[in-house]
């Protein structure tokens, strides 16, 4: 084994895993609080990258572009919730308790994802583009080198995680969100405004997705279907970490990033994705509620 490469692999895996964790954090929040399997989350990520790209192309500074993109994607997230999810949840046929629960939400999420993807294809075309990197250069140590951008991504995850934790645990809004995720009916009875909880949850989720997209878009090429793989990986992370568990999303994301880089480094990059989903299958078979999941409520 090429052990001298290990620290370098770990550094790369940490950076890759951080983007997975960012996407998974938003996804698990939306699922944990609102019980929405948001397949369109990958499109928040994709739009974050493309709006940043479009704004940078007009000459705007990368960080300003990213901030604007986050605001726009949050607006899009609200529209998606209003148009795609709320009508389905309110439809008479939708059962919120039975076995088939979530089937129609899942289907409408798939529809929303395809619609956003095809709209992006119509606007920007299918060819891959790149956002000019906002910073170059790297830190070299005796063991590994890490680019400033990778450090930024890891730091962003730390900041985002802290911010989400503070909102959830140190604000009245966060209290409302946590109450809703524990028991929606009881929360409604306590006078918690579901509209505010929905808006806040989608805003946080979409913002996290957009930031991840913009940062990764500065490293890798962007294209309209770029959100598909990360959202699938984020679902894998959710399942590994336990659906609705925020620490699970972080740890799951980092572990997945590390494993992928290891598989690609020591095995073959062709098997990178297969490795991911083999982990998924293994976790689901051995511990269906996920590593950090509480005993799964039978739905």
């Amino acid at each position, binding site marked *: 084994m090429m052990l001298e490469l290990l620290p370098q692999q770990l550094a790369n895996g940490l950076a890759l895993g951080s983007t997975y964790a960012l996407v998974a954090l938003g996804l698990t929040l939306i699922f944990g609080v609102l019980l929405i399997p948001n397949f369109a989350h990958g499109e928040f990520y994709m739009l974050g990258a493309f709006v940043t790209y479009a704004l940078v192309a007009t000459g705007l500074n990368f960080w300003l572009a990213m901030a604007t993109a986050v605001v726009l994607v949050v607006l899009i997230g609200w529209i998606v919730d209003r148009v795609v999810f709320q009508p389905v949840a309110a439809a008479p046929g939708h059962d919120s308790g039975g*076995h088939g629960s979530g*089937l129609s939400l899942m289907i*409408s999420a798939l*529809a929303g994802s395809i*619609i956003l993807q095809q709209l992006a294809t119509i606007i920007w075309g299918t060819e891959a583009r790149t956002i000019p990197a906002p910073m170059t250069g790297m830190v070299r140590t005796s063991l590994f080198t890490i680019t400033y951008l990778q450090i930024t991504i890891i730091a962003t995850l730390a900041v985002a995680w802290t911010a989400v934790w503070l909102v959830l645990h140190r604000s009245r809004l966060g209290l409302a969100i946590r109450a809703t995720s524990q028991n929606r009916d009881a929360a409604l009875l306590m006078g918690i405004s579901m509209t505010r909880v929905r808006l806040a949850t989608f805003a946080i989720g979409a913002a996290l997705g957009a930031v991840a997209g913009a940062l990764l878009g500065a490293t890798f090429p962007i294209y309209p279907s770029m959100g598909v793989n990360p959202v699938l990986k984020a679902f*894998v992370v959710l399942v590994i970490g336990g659906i609705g568990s925020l620490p699970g999303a972080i740890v799951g994301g980092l572990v997945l990033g590390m494993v992928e880089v290891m598989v690609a480094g020591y095995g073959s990059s062709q098997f990178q994705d297969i490795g991911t989903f083999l982990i*998924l299958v293994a976790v689901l078979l051995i511990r269906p509620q996920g590593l950090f999941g509480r005993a799964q409520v*039978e739905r």
Partner: protein
Amino acid sequence: MTGSNSFPRTVIAASAVFIASCAVALQLNDYYLYVVTIGAIFAVLAVSFDVLLGYTGYLSLAHGALYGLGAYSCAVLTANHGFGFWTALPIAGLITGAVGAIVALLSFRTRGLYFAVLTLGIGLIGHQLFLVFDEVTGGVGGFVGIPGPEQPDWLRVSPTAYSALLALGLLWVTFVAAAAFVRSKLGAACLAIREDITLARALGIRVAGARLAAFTFSAVFAGLAGALFASMSNFIAPESFTVLGTGFQLVALVVVGGMGTLWGPIVGAILLTALPEALRVAATYSLLAYGVLLLVFVIFAPKGIASLLKAALKSFRKAPRPAPDATPLRREVTS
């Protein structure tokens, strides 16, 4: 539900429609014959997929890959091992059914979102495997030179017409087999699972066997559809078997056509596969239209076109009688 119609009547009706569509198909030019073939193959996929989604209540996203498995099995058997189409077709169906059963055994340990995510992962692994094993599958470049289905001498039609007839024939077989399945004890057990799995278990219904049968059934016919697709197109590539292409398309066909009926998915396949092809709509716009249609139907008519048609038929029959209005009820309340 089509429960009120007896099985022989369903078979006779299906046969009549089959003969009529064959007669119409023979009048068409080559391009429209191709449209009929593709539409019928997707209808086969949609009908068998609905046995799982509409009748049993499980959303599988692995069926794009299972369809591909049938296609590659047929391609390898006929092009590399010299099998005839008629031998390769059932073998491809059996292989896909066997793999489908294994996938089902893995996936049914989970339910709801977990089931969708797990089958989605399996669908992606399948698609990746078509790319990775390029010595067998041809990788990205695709599998070239698959022999077409051999044609009997007495049937004097063009090869494209023959493909269309085969596809319509497979659709007839699928429809009749699915009709028999949903009327069987297994089918009744599947409905019980869809409605309330806990209750079904409590009543002593063999849940595991029934849903395994439903998944395997849909896998076998996905494999047969794939085999016919490979043989008639002479060329297949992994891009035809993606999760978000074919896998998603299947969901759209079934939901728009009507979950829980067998003819609804056929209507869905005609509207969403054959029609855009016939009108030569650009792929981007047709996928966008899929998304919009799917969303509109999930929100406003979750039971699809089939339920709309049924409702229209009902109100048409009732039309002579004046519709009862709310007045008697109101009187009751006020008195």
